[in-house]
């Protein structure tokens, strides 16, 4: 029997159940995306967030509508969590005109000005210096926004990571750096890529606080992100969080995954599923019941289905859409087309 006034980490039962729902939604949404990709409805590359749901949910729960979020190509979940309609995300995956970028961005490019979502980016680590710039602009304009930047363990190896952290620390910018260390960058194990065994020396090198967090525990992520967001909002500068997680699927939809064993994958999926861990905790503490989880899951499944239906029934962008948005008046892109047609 659930206790209606139970709390965990200062979160109400309603909030906790909402977090559970969001985790379920991201899971079901990605499963649906995978299905549609296999059906040939989605083209290009697609990178699923399955296994990492606790990271996005635990952290973005702390953000306000005016806060900013940047991510990598593994960003469908971040966009949904920042308020993007699953329908709109799915339509973008399908390349339909009802997508957030009118179908012109595709899987790696979820952008929304109103929601403060700045991608999705096809270039690893490109979002890192941009995050410092957004935070600078917020500060300069007297806005109290926090910029939250998600990236992988591989992105840490790019120069852009180091440049961004140094600048953000030097200028005391309101950035929360969220490294989702899922232990592989494509086929490269983090142990083979990093000269250090954690990000903590990197945080120290740029004179900012750092924390290592269990990314399969949504509450741990929530608490660490809360501290970092508060520091940023209070003008105390950036924080680097290293969130340890695992992607349950391949790097993208075509990944034979030679670089890790099936046993390792099973071990994570069976014993460290972030949704399962959260459910167990909520149940053990008498906060929620299996029936409520099932309800959430059924709703999530339905929303994912609906998103796919919406995407499927949306129109393709007109070919002429290709020539818009290159520059303000589209003149450079258009001149040639006229000539050719």
């Amino acid at each position, binding site marked *: 029997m659930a206790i209606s006034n139970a709390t965990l980490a200062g979160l109400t039962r309603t909030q906790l159940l909402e977090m559970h729902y969001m985790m379920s939604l991201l899971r079901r949404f990605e499963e649906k995306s995978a299905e549609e990709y296999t059906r040939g409805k989605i*083209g*290009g*590359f697609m990178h699923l967030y399955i296994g990492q749901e606790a990271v996005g949910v635990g952290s973005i729960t702390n953000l306000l509508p005016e806060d900013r979020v940047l991510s990598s190509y593994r960003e469908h979940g971040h966009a949904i969590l920042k308020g993007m309609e699953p329908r709109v995300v799915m339509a973008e995956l399908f*390349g339909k005109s009802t997508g957030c970028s009118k*179908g*012109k*961005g*595709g*899987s*790696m490019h979820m952008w929304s000005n109103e929601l403060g979502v700045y991608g999705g980016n*096809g*270039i*690893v*680590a490109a979002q890192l210096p941009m995050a410092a710039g957004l935070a600078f602009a917020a500060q300069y304009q007297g806005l109290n926004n926090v910029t939250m930047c998600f990236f992988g363990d*591989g*992105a840490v*190896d*790019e*120069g852009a990571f180091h440049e961004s952290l140094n600048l953000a620390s030097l200028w005391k910018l309101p950035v929360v750096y969220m490294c989702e260390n899922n232990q592989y*960058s*494509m*086929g*490269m194990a983090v142990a*083979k*890529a*990093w000269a250090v065994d954690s990000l903590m020396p990197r945080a120290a090198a740029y004179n900012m606080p750092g924390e290592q967090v269990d990314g399969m525990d949504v509450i741990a992520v929530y608490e660490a992100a809360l501290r970092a967001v508060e520091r940023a909002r209070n003008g105390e500068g950036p924080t680097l969080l290293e969130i340890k997680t695992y992607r349950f699927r391949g790097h993208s939809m075509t990944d034979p995954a*030679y*670089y890790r064993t099936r046993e390792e994958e099973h071990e994570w999926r069976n014993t460290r599923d972030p949704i399962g861990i959260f459910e167990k905790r909520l149940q053990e503490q008498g906060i929620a019941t299996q029936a409520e989880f099932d309800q959430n899951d059924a709703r999530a499944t339905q929303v994912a289905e609906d998103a796919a239906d919406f995407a499927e029934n949306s129109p*393709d*962008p007109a*070919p002429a*859409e*290709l*020539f818009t948005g*290159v520059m303000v008046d589209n003149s*450079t*892109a258009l*001149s*040639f*087309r006229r000539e*050719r047609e």
Partner: protein
Amino acid sequence: MQMTMIEALNSALALELERDRRVVVFGEDIGANGGVFRVTEHLQNKFGEERVFDTPLAESGIIGTSIGMAIYGLRPIVEIQFAGFLFVCMNQLVSQAARIRFRSAGAYTCPLVVRAPYGGGVRTPELHSDSLEAVFLQTPGFKIVVPSNPYDAKGLLASAVEDPDPVLFLENIKLYRSFRAETPTEHYSIPLGKANVVQEGTDVSIFAYGAMVNVALEAAKQAQQETGTSVEVIDLRTVWPLDEDAIAASVEKTGRAIIVHEAPRAGGIGAEITAVINERCFYSLLKPIGRVTGYDTPYPVPGQEDYYLPTPAKVMTALREIMEL
């Protein structure tokens, strides 16, 4: 042996590693995983981690260190996973690799090969489909090679490795596995800077490279059948330095020229070839030069790429126009 372009490139790399101890091969995921497209498959097994190795995700670091290696006696062959990621290491490529020889008055050279998959047609998104060759035309010091078939790929890669200067070796993604061609298993080389007349003709010359060679050939066949037009198809093989003699000789013969490339039109290889024709054989021209290219937009998403890319039909339109048919 019948090989795909992947197999031909793999064979070339294996032979270079075998022939020359100075050769090292590295990049992201190229070791045990054999690279995104499996071009380097099994090489680490055969030649060891000392000579075929993975790097962390750091394109600028990959190119920068390979320059150091090349200057100091090695022959690095590095892979950048997609040509679009070359932008991440532009400083090392353009400001450094290309200028080492000039800057040191020849005291140092930079015999480096940068391999990168490029081009569209397999539903990959922007920066994973872009054709960047023209960006490097404004980078004196680099050679730019773009093979159109397995046989050429292998022979040209051998020459690229032997070349004393940095070579950007662009491999068309669509061509990787789309067909096989007879390719010797042993070592051979095809000279850089020399175009190949793939099909002789008398009415009009089409200049192409990479995946566009087959597009041109298809259009040429159709033009012959439907209109009796005799099309000469020239595969540039190397887009820098351009084989100006081959271009001029062909246009002097046919009097008409069409250039086909998937990169955007403005400032592209087509523009450079047009200028070469103007300088070398303007008075041989019977008609204005035609260009069939990608549009001047970023590379589109999968759903629009068929519309974006040059096709045999688009080349046919250009052929009809230039032949006044």
